[in-house]
């Protein structure tokens, strides 16, 4: 009986207002973000939370980052920057995932992409704050902090997927992935 009512409740989302749906999704993103951002949250907790994967968060952050960077880019390079950021985030996340799978880690594609995607949020925040004051050292400090923050959870996540003697091989691409994103934020 309870099963059917649960089932009904899920079906009911069909005729709920769009606003409700969006609110629910944003809430979900917010709940996950809390774990990415909380300094007290252990990376294990963050990973546990992100295991229930969705791609809305990564899409949102990727779009924010692309827009922020292409707006602050020079006029003739705006579209290039937008495309570059988009491709780097998505293709990069998939390649890093593929890498860990090839090294013998057993992880669903999208779950890993979700972890990597949510964790770019500190860097997105650094990019947004960086727009406030166009000073290279201010930006560098922001991005360095964002980079360190972003790397916390994914490094642990990747490292636990593979055997002990392959940890560095799984972690290095993660570092490179965030480094490319950080570099893009700094130079624009």
């Amino acid at each position, binding site marked *: 009986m309870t099963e059917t009512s649960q089932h009904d409740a899920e079906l009911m989302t069909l005729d709920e207002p769009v606003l409700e749906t969006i609110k629910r999704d944003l809430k979900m993103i917010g709940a996950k973000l809390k774990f990415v951002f909380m300094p007290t949250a252990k990376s294990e907790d963050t990973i546990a939370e992100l295991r229930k994967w969705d791609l809305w968060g990564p899409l949102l952050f990727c779009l924010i980052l692309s827009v922020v960077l292409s707006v602050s880019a020079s006029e003739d390079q705006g579209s290039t920057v937008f495309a570059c950021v988009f491709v780097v985030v998505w293709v990069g996340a998939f390649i890093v995932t593929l890498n860990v799978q090839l090294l013998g880690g057993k992880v669903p594609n999208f779950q890993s992409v979700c972890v990597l995607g949510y964790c770019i949020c500190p860097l997105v925040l650094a990019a947004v704050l960086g727009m406030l004051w166009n000073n290279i050292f201010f930006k560098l400090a922001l991005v360095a902090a964002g980079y360190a923050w972003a790397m916390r959870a994914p490094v642990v996540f990747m490292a636990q997927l593979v055997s002990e003697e*392959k940890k560095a091989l799984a972690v290095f691409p993660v570092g490179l992935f965030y480094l490319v994103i950080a570099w893009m934020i700094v*130079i624009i």
Partner: protein
Amino acid sequence: MALTNDGDDAANPFAAASDFDDVNLAAQGPGAGGFALGDASVQRDLAAGDGFVDFDAHDGAASTSDISLASGSTGNPAIGLSGSMGPAQTYELPPVPTGLLAPFKVEYYMPYFNVTTEDVVERLKRVAMPWKNDFFEAVDARPDLYAPFWVCAALVFLIASTSNFASWIDHDSSSATEWQHDFKVLGLGASFVFGFALAMPFVAWGCFTYLGVSTANMTFIELACVYGYSISPFLVACVVCIVPALEWPAVILALGWSAVFLLRNLWARIATSNDGYVPPMDTESGEQPLQDAGSLLGDQTSPQGRKLAATLLAGVIGLHVVFAMVLKLKFFGRSA
């Protein structure tokens, strides 16, 4: 175990995958179908599947008393059975998928990523000191594509970041125009580096195969592996290129380094006779199983063969020079 010569192998349905030893076959059973082999065997299996003529030293080596062969410690007969690199197998590889869709599965490529951090560091050390030790001894019949891929990826990033940094340093702050970042360099660098790293082994492998320069010694994956590793000196060069005066010296030094590495290791594989390899004696009949391993490898011991191999290697180095020049002139072309 009875000896087999080439004639027997042709009749043997398993001869194509030349590294099936008895132990593996016994474990699998005739109906198993999936090729769950030790990783060295997987490599050899794939190499043979690529259409290589493999001389069948394993038939002599895989005597029934030698169970350890099944664990992938056979090494490559062509480089001598040194086996100094420790145990090859670190974890159980899933069976390599077969069939039409196999190349689209992750497991298909897993044998090429079956390395540990220690392996990669050891191999990179051999690139750093190319004159000291043979690279393929460290590869031990397990060529990886991990480092080649990530060396290329890191090089793309370094090209993009350091060339932007260099132009930022060069920018005259008193000039009216503001410094402009160049984002296109990321895509350009990626196509350049990955294109070169992919095309180069293909061209080399095609030439080697077409001209028959003892291809039994060299699989495509091994070529891709050695070429990918040979790019790594350019990583250092890219960083040094930030300093304006050191651009040319850095690129030329990296080119030389990587050329020495390539020459030493490729020459050892394609152009010299396999003096290091002693065909194993068969204990039962007391005769040499392979009367002359060199003759099966083509003519590379003859002056003509050496000349051909030298020409090919000159071509390889020539392409490498092109790579370095494009790197310097296209991406660090400010002072030129």
